[in-house]
């Protein structure tokens, strides 16, 4: 289909295909200002996740009991104090930046693992024999009704608390939603004309799954994944609060939120900034995924391409 669209363009463009794809994406991004902001923010987050800990670790862990719960917006102080300080007088700005790495590792890890496993199992459950499907679906029921907290206590008690284990715990608990979503879609799609046709024409199951069905399921899954990012970060916060998640001196946004909890009524900034970081990340991921969905969809792409030249 992509080929079909491209062939309608002038030959000149087809020659310079490599750069033009990037340029076109950039143009389409430029066309959607919300998505552009989101992309810039996410790039910033990723850069911070990579360089943050080495760059600011010292600032972020320097305690100052006299500067406890320092209020934000005191612009006459050093830049890193602008967001205020936490209960140990550690500046919040650098702490949030340093925490980005752990946060992103846990959240992205958990979301990606659960999405991949869930989707694969869902595809299988939707396509395989009834018996296999039954087994997978009942397994999903079991995971769904296994309280995530209990999973956390068991895994962390037996294996010890670490970022990797926490990621696993959160990933396990999120598998069923991807699994069930994928399977439901597969059940529906496999009855559709084009899949039936492909089957008649002798396409292998694998080919039908990955070429015909997966592309239809992916938009819904992306929406779920971006939302799960927020969910996982907050779930991790709740686990920290109960003493079975990430524990200091490690930091994550979720941990910062749960540590600020008791100061909510008189030092709101302690949990507000990391909370805002989570909100902004979720928002950006979602805006970008909505944009990506349009940009990758040959049928809808014109919306962005129309706007592109006008604004750019």
């Amino acid at each position, binding site marked *: 289909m992509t080929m079909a669209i491209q062939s309608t363009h002038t030959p000149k463009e087809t020659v310079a295909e490599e750069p033009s794809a990037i340029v076109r994406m950039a143009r389409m991004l430029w066309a959607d200002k919300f998505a552009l902001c989101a992309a810039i923010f996410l790039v910033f987050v990723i850069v911070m996740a990579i360089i943050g800990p080495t760059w600011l670790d010292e600032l972020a862990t320097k305690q100052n009991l006299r500067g406890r719960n320092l209020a934000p917006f005191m612009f006459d102080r050093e830049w890193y104090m602008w967001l205020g300080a936490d209960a140990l007088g550690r500046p919040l700005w650098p702490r949030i930046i340093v925490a980005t790495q752990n946060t992103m590792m846990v959240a992205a890890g958990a979301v990606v693992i659960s999405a991949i496993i869930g989707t694969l199992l869902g595809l299988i459950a939707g396509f395989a024999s009834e018996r296999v499907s039954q087994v997978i679906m009942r397994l999903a029921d079991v995971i769904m009704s296994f309280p995530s907290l209990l999973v956390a206590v068991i895994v962390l008690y037996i294996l010890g608390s670490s970022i990797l284990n926490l990621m696993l715990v959160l990933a396990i608990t999120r598998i069923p939603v991807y699994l069930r979503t994928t399977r439901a879609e597969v059940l529906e799609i496999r009855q559709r004309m084009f899949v039936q046709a492909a089957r008649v024409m002798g396409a292998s199951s694998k080919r039908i799954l990955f070429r015909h069905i997966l592309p239809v399921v992916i938009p819904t899954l992306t929406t779920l994944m971006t939302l799960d990012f927020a969910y996982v970060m907050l779930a991790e916060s709740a686990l920290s609060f109960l003493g*079975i998640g990430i524990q200091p001196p490690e930091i994550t946004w979720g941990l910062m939120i749960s540590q600020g909890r008791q*100061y*909510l009524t008189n030092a709101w900034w302690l949990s507000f900034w990391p909370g805002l970081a989570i909100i902004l990340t979720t928002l950006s991921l979602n805006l970008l995924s909505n944009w990506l969905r349009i940009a990758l969809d040959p049928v809808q792409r014109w919306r962005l391409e129309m706007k592109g030249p006008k604004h750019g």
Partner: protein
Amino acid sequence: MKTSHLFGAVLGSVIAFGAGIAPVHAASTDIKIVLPEEADLLEPCMATRSNIGRVIMENVSETLTELDVRTKQGVMPRLAEKWEQTGDGAWRFHLRQGVKFSDGKAFGAKDVKYSFDRIFSDKNVCESRRYFGGMKFDVKVVDDNTIDFKVDPVQPILPLLLSLVTIVPEGTPLEFVREPVGTGPYKLSNWTPGQQIVLDARDDYWGKKPAVTKATYVFRADPAVRAAMVQAGEADLAPSISQVEATNEKTDFSYLDSETVYLRIDGNIAPLNDVRVRKALNLAIDRQAFLGTLVPQDAVLATALVPPTTLGWNPDVKVFPYDPDQAKKLLEEAKAAGVPVDTPITVVARTANFPNVTEIMEAVQAQLQEVGFKIDLKFVEVAEHEVYYSKPFKDGRGPIIVAAMHDNSKGDPSFTMFFKYDSKGTQSGYADPKVDDLIARASAATGDERAKLWSQLIAYVHDDLVADVLLFHMVGYSRVSERLDFKPSIATNGMLQLSEIGFKN
């Protein structure tokens, strides 16, 4: 247009609902108390546990004696009118007459004996049994109002110990009960698990009739909500709120709550088996800097694991100064003598163990690292904490320090010292013959001799053995509605006597 109509309708119904909230103070002598944790049982023999004791101790179930903490008169009579020690070390208690249980039965010596037997029954695991470990009891009913306790070994503080034993009527099931019957000024009239417990004043109580006629207990885990409930007039008393919420001078009171925070050192493992290293730990911590910041201003720096109101508390023992240079020097000395001071030390703390525990422990870690210790800080939940805190300790463990909180509001160090310092104590990291000897002698002594021996022990543990890093005697905050006349005390943590609550005007 439509949406604005809808919004109006919703708002209208919200206001209508709001107007329907019943006034809280229906009768002015009924009060509502909001506690952090629901009692899972209302079992009299478990009343020494704070979540149970705060509801029933001395309200529903009474004891033979009680410890007076407000006017510091020591052990006072309650169900026993007087007592004396006979020649062979046995105790004779003369019981109050004309006392009735809330089920109408008369109280007598047989009930006391039954209550005792019940604690030691194998049909239950009563918590109060732990105070009588290693003792043999011979309880004899002399007559209806007299009872003899013969204990082996002789217990000089038996009257104090009896302030921990609640009396139930003869015939109470040996298994745990959920509906306590007692001689107290109140009786349980309603318990809806998860929602509320209601106590009503009894007309046939033997003593002075208390001002509060009815007390309703509700439970909210969040301290901000507890404070908000008193502020909003939905409750009259929140015995424990957090320090950050305690901002209103008229309603919020602080009280020394008998909890002591300390770092328990496992002195069996190098480098913590070296006294210089332990001293360095103590000198490295700037205790004063915590006061008014992470720890309430009114908290007291600890020199013993028992609060200053305890018998034998030693005023001559001084808090370690903050002296990082001296700490560094001691560490170097130890290192020169071949002590492996570079071994990383694990500090284990329990989440939500006490207010600000995370921040306090992070600050402690920073201060220890400042003088050259290698500290791994580890936060665990309650079950795992217990594994580190109590014996049997794991074989092959590294050097471990456990941050813990210990509660002794009972006025005598015997509830503390054996467990925390004796070589057989469950949380003791030491086997020091001198400590064992002092504990044994102090436990058997009476009067001034007893106080002197405890003082000696406290000084030895702090100055010579440097057994642990003592930090703070903590302070609790409670919010009391302005219509109530009540001041919390050191006992408030584990016991909340409704008869101590009065009304203004």
